[in-house]
């Protein structure tokens, strides 16, 4: 199937090279799957959302003297454990993709399942952290630092939740055997989203917990 598509693309590419009407966009769409362009376009919009938020946070923090007293109350140990959990889930997600390439169906569903569990562990730790913070009296209205803290980690947790739903769906499909034959793209695109969520946390952790 892949080789047929590849050869069709190659034929189309060869004819477009001779076709004076062929545009750069035509060539681009032949070289890249439309789904891949779409997911990267979506991730680009996500970069702007988190990037804008992070930029505001950094600027406000500089403007308000660093918020060091407030930041001292955040539990960096829990943040570090959550970073380890998310980084490990990125590994299991890429191993699911790797197993697709090897056509190891059992491993695909196993790694997707582990990724979902690790995502849930991340949310569990985050919930515990929120509960502890709220019980200590640090609410989103306790000051600008806490407003940013809940906004940024909350938005990230929403993205983690969406990723868990997507991966759980893929896991269920893999168990039922309905993930194939478009498994390659499905797992790859879900993986791109999941790794992006990991990258965002890689920056949120030092911004909120270590500085």
């Amino acid at each position, binding site marked *: 199937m892949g080789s047929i598509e590849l050869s069709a693309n190659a034929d189309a590419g060869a004819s477009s090279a001779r076709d004076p009407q062929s545009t750069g966009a035509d060539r*681009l769409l032949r*070289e*890249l799957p439309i789904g*891949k*362009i779409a997911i*990267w*376009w979506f*991730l*680009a*919009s996500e*970069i*702007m959302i988190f*990037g*804008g938020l*992070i*930029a505001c946070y*950094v*600027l*406000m923090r*500089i*403007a308000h003297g660093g918020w060091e007293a407030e930041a001292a109350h955040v539990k*960096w140990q829990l943040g*570090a454990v959550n*970073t*380890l959990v998310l*980084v*490990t889930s*990125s*590994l299991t*997600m*890429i*191993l699911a993709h*790797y197993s697709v*390439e*090897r056509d190891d169906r059992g491993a695909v569903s196993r790694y997707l399942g582990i990724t979902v569990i690790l995502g849930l562990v991340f949310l569990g730790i985050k919930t515990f952290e929120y509960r502890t913070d709220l019980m200590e009296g640090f609410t989103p209205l306790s000051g600008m630092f806490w407003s940013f803290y809940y906004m940024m980690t909350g938005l990230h947790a929403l993205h983690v939740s969406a990723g868990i739903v997507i991966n759980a769906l893929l896991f269920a499909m893999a168990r039922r055997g309905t993930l194939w034959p478009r498994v390659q793209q499905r797992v790859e695109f879900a*993986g*791109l989203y999941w*790794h*992006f969520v*990991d*990258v965002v946390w*890689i*920056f949120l*952790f*030092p911004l909120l917990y*270590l*500085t």
Partner: protein
Amino acid sequence: MERVEQERTEYITVWFWLVALLLAGVAVMALPVSKLAALALIFSIATIKAALVLRNYMHLKSESLFIMVVALVPVLLFIGLAIALIPDIAMHR
């Protein structure tokens, strides 16, 4: 098949590096260095970690130029936005 096997080793090696860098980032807090130096170290480490994920797990190292541009332009835009707003927000007391 050998290439696929090599990829697996690469993914696991990257994970070890990510864990090591996470520990290094946390350890910076205990270093007897100035606040500015600690911040520079912490964010350098975070940038390396993000680059590792983007390059190896998101396969940016083998992606087309178009995808790289799509990923890079918003990063440049929000960095530009932050720099442009520094005089108005961060330096306005």
